């Protein structure tokens, strides 16, 4: 049950961010990720921080939900920050035996933490929290469609993704049921040595695989019965259209990318690291 809420975490809403074209959000998330990771100037990062807070406010998604998406990466963020904190050479401000903390290290560590948090928050704001998995699948199909000329099976790929999305909750339920059933037959998944645990997994995975194959069979027949014949000339159900806000949004993103690439090198040095 817990894992299900992990997967389908999109929060329904009608905010500007929710209404953005999924392709724009998908590319936007990648652009922002690259931009934040490569920004080396505190002032540029401050702009990004301001921007992220603005998006957060527009999307009307609760801070608690956003922070929940940071939690799984908390360890990496702390680790990277500490690494910077203790390894960057410079003006020493604190020394405990061999461990020393420098001013440069402090700044660098702080910026690393900020970069990583911004990256995670942006990605989850644009993709996981405001976009349904189905919309992401549609966006991917549309973005990948030029690859059709290289004989990449774009339609089949998209169909596969959307079917996978459709069946994830069904399979989770099934796994839950099989696990309960095997527990009732005395299987023990919590105690015992590694060998016993692997053996225990077999009793869940084998039935799960077999039923998935059966489902796949059934589904293929059901699709055939509804006249499915591959991607040839199917009507496209979800046609994606760019609106004015999509264009405005894209322009903002381009400006931000330019900030990092073009403006940053010419900024007068402040405390660039």
């Amino acid at each position, binding site marked *: 049950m817990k894992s299900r809420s992990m997967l389908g975490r999109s929060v329904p809403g009608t905010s500007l961010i929710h209404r953005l074209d999924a392709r724009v959000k998908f590319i936007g998330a990648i652009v922002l990720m690259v931009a934040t990771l490569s920004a080396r100037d505190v002032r540029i990062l401050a702009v990004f921080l301001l921007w992220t807070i603005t998006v957060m406010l527009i999307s009307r998604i609760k801070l608690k939900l956003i922070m929940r998406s940071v939690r799984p990466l908390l360890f990496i963020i702390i680790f990277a920050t500490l690494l910077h904190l203790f390894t960057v050479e410079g003006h020493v401000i604190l020394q405990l035996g061999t461990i020393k903390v420098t001013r440069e290290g402090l700044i660098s560590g702080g910026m690393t933490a900020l970069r990583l948090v911004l990256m995670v928050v942006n990605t989850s704001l644009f993709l996981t929290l405001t976009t349904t998995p189905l919309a992401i699948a549609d966006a991917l199909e549309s973005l990948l469609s030029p690859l059709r000329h290289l004989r990449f099976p774009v339609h089949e790929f998209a169909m596969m993704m959307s079917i996978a999305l459709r069946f994830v909750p069904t399979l989770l*339920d099934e796994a839950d049921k099989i696990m309960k059933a095997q527990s*009732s037959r005395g299987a023990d998944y919590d105690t015992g040595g590694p060998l016993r645990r692997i053996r225990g997994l077999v009793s869940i995975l084998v039935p799960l695989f077999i039923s998935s194959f059966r489902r796949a069979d059934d589904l293929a027949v059901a699709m055939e019965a509804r006249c499915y014949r591959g991607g040839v*000339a199917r009507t496209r159900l979800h046609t994606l259209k760019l609106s004015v806000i999509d264009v405005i949004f894209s322009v903002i993103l381009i400006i931000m990318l330019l900030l990092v690439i073009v403006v940053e090198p010419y900024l007068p040095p402040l405390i660039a690291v």
Partner: protein
Amino acid sequence: MIHFKDVSYTYGAEEGQLPIRAVDHVSFHVKKGSHVALLGRNGSGKSTIARLINGLLLPDEGSVLVNGMDTTDSLDIFEIRRICGMVFQNPDNQLIGATVADDIAFGPCNLELPIDEVNARVDEALRSSGLTALRDRAPHNLSGGQKQKLAIASILAMEPECIILDEATSMLDPMSRRSVMELILELKEKSDISIVQITHHMEEAVLADYVYVISDGSIVLEGTPAEVFDQFERVRAEGLSVPVHIEIARRIADTTDTYYRPEDIFSFEGAVSFVRGVIESRTSSESTGDLDAGYEIGERRGVDNASQDLDRERVIEISNLSFDYVSDAGEPVRALEDVSFSVEKGEILGILGHTGSGKSTLIQHINGIIPSKKGTVVVLGRDLSDRKTVRDIRRHVGLLFQYPEDQLFEETVALDIAFAPKQLNRTPKEVERAVLSAARRLGVESILHRSPFELSGGQRRRVAIAGVLAAEPDIIMMDEPAAGLDPSGRDELFSDLVTLVDEGATLLIVSHDMETMACLCDRILILNNGKVAGYGTPREMTSSADFLQSVSLDIPSSKRFLNCFVDLFPGLDTNCYTAEEAACALLRAVAEG
């Protein structure tokens, strides 16, 4: 519109396996706008026939024509599939779209319709199936009945001329089954759509215009439902059941040598008035011959003596049990509320209630799969609130989920059955003995060396049950053990299970089916919305039709039939749960005046 001309089909012919002739020289036709039912036991070849209709399978011999088009003609095949839409058995395995609307659009998109037309058809299909409110839901969040309605809507959007229902209702509970059938009949009424219905539920077959009974790939009986069910002994020999009122009327007609026409006793009311006529002409005259009882699923169990042995050991005691689960939306939902009852050793307890009444949640508390939070669960004298006790108690309490065949995983039947006793660290000798005895009881000892995955559905079910019995539990709980089995398979399974009680086991059976449970169980617990709505003997629980209706359960039909005669015979024993008993009771009442 559909013509089968001398059609045969053999499985496994090209793969070098043992060929199985599934359809053997079958000819029939379906007229436009008619409703045809194909009946037969599990594995009789009905589903193969369905798949031959729309070209999912192609005949080895003979030909299948739909509106004059041959299914072997690859140019026409998609038009044939559009004309003959198909609803499959498993609600989960036929929905493709990520939302209700997307799923309906799948077919029209395949037909390359313009997008406006696709959207119009989606709206129309949603409206005619009554699913408009669920438009943006994910299929996973629908109930079984809603899923099947969605499957029907998805076909309607392709504007078919015929709907093939391939056991489409067999995985549904009685309420959803009825509501799906209502939708089908409504569609048939409104448009000139033909229905081909593959089923082993006689209550669906009686709605058809014409019935074919299939056995071993051939048509063995055909006619209007009235004609077919009139031959109730042959129908039953095919593993099917017969509407109880027809059988009672038939038995009374036979014993009293009264002339009747099959269509007179076809409806419930017709059968009642026919029997009343017989009784009125007979009451004062000679005595009636008696019927030999012989057919029954196990013997009638002590319907009233369950509560007499007050000193029997109580193996399960549940008091004030409540349980909430958290829904996907994050809100707590009450699944059980203040449930209290006890079960005595050697008893068969039926747990009945509609879907979502809390039955499954309740039994999962009894072997500790769900820990009890509010209230106490005491099993075999030990309180399950202690987690250490739970591990120990599980070996004494077997739990069988719905469709337990899904949990099989070993290479051979024997290994799979041995899984539970091995987990208990029994010696190899003990394991072997336990496996053999469980296999023997379920009649699967001849297939112990085979892979569970090459067996039929009914055999797999039996292997899975044996896998739970092999741990030799004192209490066995089963969730709908007969779901999806044909009537004779169900009766045989229950008669095998009842023998467990003779050896001191206690049985808890979860079910929707009051008819079967009333003649099987010592006591019945009725749940409604998580609360105990009734608890007592089958006689007590079935005494009020209004009460049963209020908890969405059916009154056993033989009892309903007999209730129509209490004005003539005030002393009539209406606690009969089979047609044979009911006919006996009526004849006895006539004889005694």
